[in-house]
């Protein structure tokens, strides 16, 4: 995966367009040549404990995500996968531990544009805007491009996810799968080097889920994107993930890390049961 991925540049600290002296003129996807930078993991998590107040959801989590790989966060329902994602992207403050994203430490969402895009589970598209406006929004907000250029970029992003004809539609008019595609387009609007996808194929029929997996794989390979996927859909994981971490509810920590295809034969009963869809009682 790493060999086929196009290397990504370090993300420049972006400023709002209102700050005229710091307009963005740098294409974030321009290839760069710093090998040491490429070999450094894009996400490093050390001893992370997540939860609220006295409630600990997961503790002592440590893992790394390499640049250009598709990395899965796996676990049963209620293990705290989506919660972990919220902590990784800076929406919540961890109880303990360290998170480093793209060498910039724990994301501070108040400080500017984070170096990643996010697709939330239900898409989280802005209902008052059309799909095209949803995708244009971050470009309008963070660049000083003229309207026609913004529209062209938004169109290209929507075309990338197969929604070129849906630009003028409202989110309420889209199916679940289309909403997720549109949300991916919005997450990619500013060409981040890293995207987080929360349950991308949940609630979709098998064909639509497979299409979405194919899209994620294509984006990862052609754009050199690092993709972090939160899911419990095994088919998706086997199809697209290079590596995974598996969370457990009882021990409240990671019980397996590695290639999902190898973990299928894990001697750990919990891991084996999950990957082979075995009931706990069997």
């Amino acid at each position, binding site marked *: 995966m790493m060999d086929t991925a196009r290397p990504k540049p370090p993300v420049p600290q*972006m400023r*709002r*367009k*209102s*700050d005229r002296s710091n307009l963005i003129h740098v294409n974030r996807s321009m290839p760069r040549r710093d090998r040491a930078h490429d070999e450094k993991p894009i996400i490093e998590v050390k001893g992370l404990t997540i939860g609220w107040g006295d409630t600990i959801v997961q503790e002592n989590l440590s893992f790394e995500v390499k640049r250009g790989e598709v990395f899965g966060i796996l676990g049963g329902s209620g293990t705290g996968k989506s919660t972990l994602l*919220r902590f990784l*992207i*800076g*929406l919540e403050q961890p109880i303990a531990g360290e998170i480093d994203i793209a060498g910039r430490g724990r994301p501070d*969402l*108040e400080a*500017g*544009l*984070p170096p*990643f*895009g*996010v697709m*939330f*589970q*239900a898409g*989280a*598209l*802005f*209902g008052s805007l059309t799909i095209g406006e949803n995708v244009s*929004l*971050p470009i309008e*907000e*963070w660049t000083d491009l003229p309207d026609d250029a913004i529209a062209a970029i938004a169109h290209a992003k929507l075309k990338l996810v197969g929604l070129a004809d849906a630009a003028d539609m409202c989110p309420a008019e889209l199916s679940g799968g289309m909403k997720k595609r549109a949300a991916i387009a*919005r997450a990619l609007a500013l060409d981040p080097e890293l995207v987080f996808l929360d349950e991308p194929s949940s609630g979709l029929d098998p064909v639509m889920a497979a299409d979405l997996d194919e899209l994620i794989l294509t984006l990862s390979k052609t754009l050199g994107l690092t993709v972090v996927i939160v899911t419990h859909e095994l088919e998706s994981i086997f199809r697209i993930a290079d590596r995974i971490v598996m969370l457990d509810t009882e021990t409240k920590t990671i019980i397996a890390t590695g290639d999902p295809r190898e973990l299928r034969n894990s001697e750990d009963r919990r891991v084996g049961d999950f990957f082979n869809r075995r009931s706990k009682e069997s």
Partner: protein
Amino acid sequence: MHDAVAFWRDVRKETEGDLGRIVFDLSNVQAADGGVVALLVELRTELGARGVKAELAGANDRVETIVNLYSGHEGVTLRTKHKPEGTVAQIGRSTFEVKEEAKALLDFLGNMVLAGITLLRHPRAGHWKDVVALCEKTGADAVPIVLLINFLVGFVMAFQSAKQLKMFGANIYVADLVGISLTRELAPLMTAIIVCGRSGAAFAAEIGSMKVNEEVDALRTLGISPFGWLVVPRIAALILVVPLLTLIADFVGTAGGLLVGIIDLDLTAQGYVIETLTAVHGWDVLTGLLKSLVFSVAIGLIACQQGLAATGGAEGVGRRTTSSVVTSLFMLVAIDALFTVIFRAFNV
């Protein structure tokens, strides 16, 4: 399940007292539904706990399958009844909730101040293009209801006072009473109440829905401040619109009084208008507009704060919307009272 109540009552009665062993003979049972079998299995567990050996015997294959299915639930603990919260506990919980709410409100105000400073430094960063649409929604769309309510307020006030003033032959002073009351107190307050019920509730529900649908989180991950993008345009729209609505309310309320003056007090329209203009000074109208400005900020802040505090899906949004309206109404009256005291103290 239809016979389950009678069945449960009868079987429990039969199994009361000291029993060494009890056998439930199911040989004549051709079919049983899940609920009845679940009750029998539960009863067997309960008897076992009392030291009574209970058996379910003679069931045909079909019934036995259901019994085996429900036997997995042996030892199910009874639902614990919630003890009603005591008065002291309620007071304690409410106190903590008030503390938390106050903390959240201060946090919100702090963020608003930061967003305000950012917008002063970089006005282009504001999401101003929403302001026009919001002005239309909160202002233009509210005009009919503002007209109707304030016309009726002026009309009712004049009607109520007419009877009293007639007794003293002071019919013309209805114009003074209606004009001053409306411009200083009632028009700003009634208009703010209408805006609070219409737009404040809508803002809280809209932002609350965005919050529970993760749209607010999505904004933050795009590096966009929800305060600058959602809160500031709404408050700006209210600041622009509420004083204008109040001004309209002043005129239409006066028209309500005028109608009563003409039909009930035999006043001429010209006489009523001249008396109103004599009694009502520019400062009276200005104090009303000043109040409406503060009301609009209060409505906007409370509605947006409640919306952003919504959690837990549709129920949470509903709770916050209600809370937004109730809190705003209380604040409107409190602010109005404060203004009245201040104006009185400074004799204005």
